[in-house]
């Protein structure tokens, strides 16, 4: 408690930050009701709940981004009113946002120090900032060149830069809103270690995550939110992940992953041979069978996304692609879509959906040819298709004409899946299909994927969640530094096997 040493009025052992009976309404909708939470010095307090349970709203109230409708905040036992995030930061409460808020054209170091640049006389001290940023990122277990512009980084790397930036602010309470959603196990492990370190310094941590094993591992206390209320609060050592899932959903989550029976001797539908995407993937070869679910595992930066983007014509690549034995070339996505390959981007907000448009426009965007009546678009037919997609993929939208930006992440993902399925693909490539999605929706997405495979469609899943790949895939290819370094099937499909291949640690090849 060295940070509060100069303030004798503080009751020792009291919570650093406390919310008392907070409520928040948006118009007539009450999204939080009488929620009380507190974090003690050196405590990691996990807040879990399904999407829409009110976790992010609660965190925004704690960090001053929103004002509560009722209830109060106490810092060191004293009631405070936060005027905004800057005020909250001044009082030592910092928030690591779920969304990435970085200037894409500035370098890593410039972003880390944005608004609080180090200076040497009249000019900014680039050397000191680069060194500081390099160290800050390295503390998170990553190695990112501080001189690189953020635009060139992957989403996971950007997330790390964002965390590094926040942790440079003097802090007493840190709020993490799904920090690991886009991180791989290695990076997650490093981040959890960082959290353990700052906890050891007497900092209080609020931690939101959908990854329950991670919560189990790091948290001291777990509060479960459902429909804007606290439904349970337990010490973490009294709960297993499966108990947490049950409390979040309010019912038993019997089985997250659908039952699938492995089939031998599938007919090969896609063959990729010696395919390279300059700078990202080298000499990749693999085959995909009809009705197969093939996983792609690897660390962030292993080149999985770039490989798939190269295959479908989103990036320049070279090598042989054969569909049903016929050689194909895709100079543009248009061509691969027509050949029956659909790629669902990992960046559903930036590259998957038009956030400022409604559901109908988004649903039919990739398949407008099917909605033509002479020169016009047949809107009635579009509406029928939307109704069907809403039913088929259980898209929960308050109104059919609402904007996609107003949908929850899970429903956006379902809409993106529905959109790409409108092109009736025989091969579906899904990139991080469940990132930032609650457990109930995840279960649904897995069911959809399994059902699509059962229809005889072939699916490639890229995911940073090992459990997910092991749970739904027939086979997993592991990539490292742009190359396929192995494939695991059957009883060899376990997390350890995949991690060893992905990192190359065991074979001693890794740097």
């Amino acid at each position, binding site marked *: 408690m060295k940070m509060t040493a100069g303030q004798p009025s503080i009751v020792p052992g009291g919570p650093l930050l406390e919310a008392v009976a907070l409520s928040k309404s948006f118009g007539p909708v009450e999204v939080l009701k009488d929620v009380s939470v507190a974090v003690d010095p050196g405590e990691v307090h996990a807040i879990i709940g399904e999407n829409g349970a009110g976790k992010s709203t609660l965190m925004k109230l704690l960090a001053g981004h929103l004002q509560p409708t009722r209830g109060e905040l106490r810092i060191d036992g004293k009631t405070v009113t936060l005027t905004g995030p800057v005020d909250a930061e001044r009082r030592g409460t910092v928030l690591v946002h779920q969304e990435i808020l970085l200037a894409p054209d500035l370098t890593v170091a410039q972003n880390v120090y944005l608004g609080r640049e180090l200076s040497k006389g009249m000019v900014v001290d680039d050397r000191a900032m680069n060194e500081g940023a390099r160290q800050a990122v390295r503390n998170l277990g990553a190695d990112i060149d501080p001189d690189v512009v953020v635009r060139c980084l992957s989403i996971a790397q950007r997330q790390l830069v964002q965390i590094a930036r926040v942790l440079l602010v003097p802090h007493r309470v840190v709020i993490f809103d799904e920090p690991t959603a886009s991180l791989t196990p290695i990076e997650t492990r490093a981040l959890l270690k960082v959290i353990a370190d700052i906890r050891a310094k007497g900092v209080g941590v609020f931690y939101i995550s959908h990854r329950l094993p991670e919560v189990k591992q790091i948290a001291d206390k777990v509060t479960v939110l459902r429909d804007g209320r606290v439904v349970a609060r337990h010490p973490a050592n009294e709960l297993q992940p499966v108990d947490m899932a049950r409390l979040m959903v309010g019912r038993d989550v019997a089985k997250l992953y659908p039952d699938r029976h492995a089939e031998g001797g599938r007919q090969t539908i896609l063959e990729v041979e010696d395919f390279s995407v300059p700078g990202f993937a080298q000499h990749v070869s693999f085959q995909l069978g009809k009705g197969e679910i093939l996983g792609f595992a690897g660390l962030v930066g292993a080149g999985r996304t770039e490989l798939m983007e190269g295959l479908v014509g*989103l990036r320049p690549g070279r090598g042989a692609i054969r569909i049903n034995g016929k050689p194909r070339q895709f100079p*543009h*996505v*248009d061509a*691969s*879509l*027509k050949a029956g390959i659909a*790629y669902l*981007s990992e*960046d559903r907000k*930036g*590259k*998957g*959906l*038009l*956030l*400022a*448009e*409604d559901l109908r*426009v988004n649903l039919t*965007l*990739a398949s*407008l*040819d099917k*909605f*033509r009546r002479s*020169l*016009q*678009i047949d809107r009635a037919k579009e509406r029928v298709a939307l109704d069907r997609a809403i039913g088929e993929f259980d898209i929960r939208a308050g109104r059919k*004409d*609402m*904007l996609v930006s107003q949908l929850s992440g899970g429903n956006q993902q379902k809409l993106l899946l529905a*959109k790409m399925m409108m*092109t009736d693909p025989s091969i579906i490539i899904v990139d991080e299909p469940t990132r930032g999605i609650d457990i109930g929706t995840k279960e649904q997405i897995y069911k959809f994927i399994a059902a699509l495979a059962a229809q005889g469609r072939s699916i490639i899943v890229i995911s940073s969640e090992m459990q997910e790949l092991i749970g739904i895939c027939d086979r997993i290819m592991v990539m490292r530094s742009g190359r396929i370094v192995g494939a695991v099937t059957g009883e060899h499909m376990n997390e350890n096997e995949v991690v060893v291949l992905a990192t190359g640690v065991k074979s001693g090849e890794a740097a």
Partner: protein
Amino acid sequence: MTDLAADARKVQKSWKDIDLRAVAPFLALALLLILGAIANPNFISIDNLLNVVTRSAFIAIIAVGATFVISAGGLDLSVGSMVAFVASLTIMFMNSGVIADPATMIAVAMALAIVIGSACGLANGLITTAGSIEPFIATLGTMGIYRGLTTWLSQGGAITLRSPDILSLYRPAYFGAVLGIPVPIIIIVVTAAVGAFVLNRTRYGRHVLAVGSNEDVARYSGILVERVRTITYVIQGLCVAVACLLYVPRLGSTSATTGLMWELQAITAVVVGGTALRGGVGRIWGTVCGAFILEIVGNIMLLSNFVSEYLIGAIQGAIIIVAMLVQRSLVRKS
């Protein structure tokens, strides 16, 4: 005008503030009409209004094309110079006398104007897409090129239609009327109706809005982003050509200052009409309304004695800023 009705209906359903933004230009137009009537009773006469709308034809038609370019996230600064260039070449062709019959000559010259306009637009499109140069810079360059070529063709003077036969035969294209409605007004309505149909009803129009809304999403959806963008510039060139077809019979002459600052007026009309400058939202009828507003403001200034008419440019410049501020405030209310 079924497109207009359908558009308003869709907007009403989707979001309150967007509804306001779509209606705002029409409210402003109504307000101006009332203001004008108060300032000078002659203003509201049918003759004067038809006259005003007729004079807005050039900007209105060009701005319909600009709505496509801007909706797709682009910008075309070269339209004013392009008018001068296309009209000059058209007149020079008419003066060349390669076709004796005046009627045939006019028809071929009109076709030529359309071809040249489209080619100029295609050049703009290819420079921005294939050359991947920012549209602001690319069209700033072609703006200089088209203007410079016009100055060179006219040797700094004027290019005038010499044949009185052709001129007298062609004059009704601007000064004529059908059922009492001046031809330019009919051309505005037809151009806007076609434009609104293409933008709101067709697959291509949907692609334009998707590209302007988020280029990445469009690309990942299999849309040929570059082709869609290029075609918007061709549409812009076509609209400029149509404006030239009305311009030539009006004056029968061009000079190095023809169409000066028209790009500013066209962009103002588009923005005043509720189209987002960042792309993704396009309102053709709003654009036409914006062009009327610009012309009416000028007309009111002429008819009333409040403000010197030499300040028209300044007032038009102020209008674009006010329109942006209004749009911004309507968004914030959400």
